[in-house]
């Protein structure tokens, strides 16, 4: 299991959050705004690329413990298509690494910041959330 936690530049109590382009529901309300970024690696279980947000579901190997299902919510696909994304850009079974901000409620759910393939190649032409 690889769930690395990287503390990125912290806003510290700043009143506004502008790290991720939201679509219809408030990023600041649903996701941790202290910029704690979660890194997940595992095979893709499902990929849905529909608005208001795409969903990448992956299985993070437990390495001796139970595997964990995680979901990553993308920016609006209507924005992502201009960044090299499509409904076929990720295939089920493919191993990917996802980084993003975890849901405030502590569930296995992140807002995607960026994604890469097993060889480190970025998916898409620009960071997913900016």
């Amino acid at each position, binding site marked *: 299991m690889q769930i690395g936690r990287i503390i990125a530049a912290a806003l510290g109590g700043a*009143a*506004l*959050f*502008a*790290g*991720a*382009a*939201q*679509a*219809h*529901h*408030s*990023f*600041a*309300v*649903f996701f941790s*705004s202290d910029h704690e970024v979660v890194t997940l690696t595992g095979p893709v279980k499902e990929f*849905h690329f*529909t*608005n*208001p*947000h795409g*969903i990448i579901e992956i299985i993070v190997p437990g390495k001796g413990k139970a595997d964990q299902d995680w*979901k990553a*919510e993308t920016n*609006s696909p*209507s*924005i992502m*298509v*201009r960044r090299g994304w499509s409904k076929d850009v990720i295939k089920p079974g493919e191993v990917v690494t996802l980084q993003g901000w975890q849901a405030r409620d502590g569930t296995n*759910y992140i807002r995607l910041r960026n994604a890469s393939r097993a060889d480190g190649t970025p998916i898409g032409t620009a960071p997913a959330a900016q």
Partner: protein
Amino acid sequence: MKRLVLILALVAAPALALAAAPMKDGHPDLSGFWDLDMKVARDPALMKRIGPNTAVLDDTGPTEFPRNEYGGLKLKPAARNAADKWDPKDDLSVAKVCSPPSIVYAMQGPFPIRIDQGKDIVVIRLQYYDMIRIVFMDGRSHLPPAAPHTKVGDSIGHWEGDTLVVDTDHLEPATITNNGLSHSENVHVIERFRLSPDGRTLLSTQEFEDPQVLDNRGARFIAWKKQDGQFIEPYDCDPSFALNYGK
């Protein structure tokens, strides 16, 4: 003589600059594909038109206010009470997740717009939720009070010099700041649109007043950059997304 030359230069400069912007039917042509750009400085000419007792919100684009922060808007007690009780997960149900906001929130979202400008109507198409606005420029009045309210409302427009002024009412209640504060069906919105001298930046302000909800007025500065060869993508909202939030 030098002073005369300087005065002539100052007078001529704006006209020369405006000449670079496209024109149509005697007005600046706002037509084109425009992508939101938060780096554009507020346009002084538009900002000085904003009325008194107005809070200018700093939440254009992906920037958002957290709970209980409204950027200087003064909420009526009932509006504050409703915002305090707001449960964001209620918006993430299959029934609601694909319900669009009104233009009050949608226009500042991080999504492109496309404008097609005619003499009697201006069409503003938003990628966000596939919204389509029609601004009537033929001198008509607003719809009668009993007419239905919608998320795009009833928009009538006119030109004031190089600025398109759009007046919108008949809006259906919807969020203002995406954090529990909603406007009523009586909100009134004034938008002003003008081009930068080179015609590549669309500058605008959005002012709104809703005495049923707010003790003051609100405004935003919104700007877009022109992008050639781009098209509005379909939004086609899929309500099954809400199942990821358990509803």
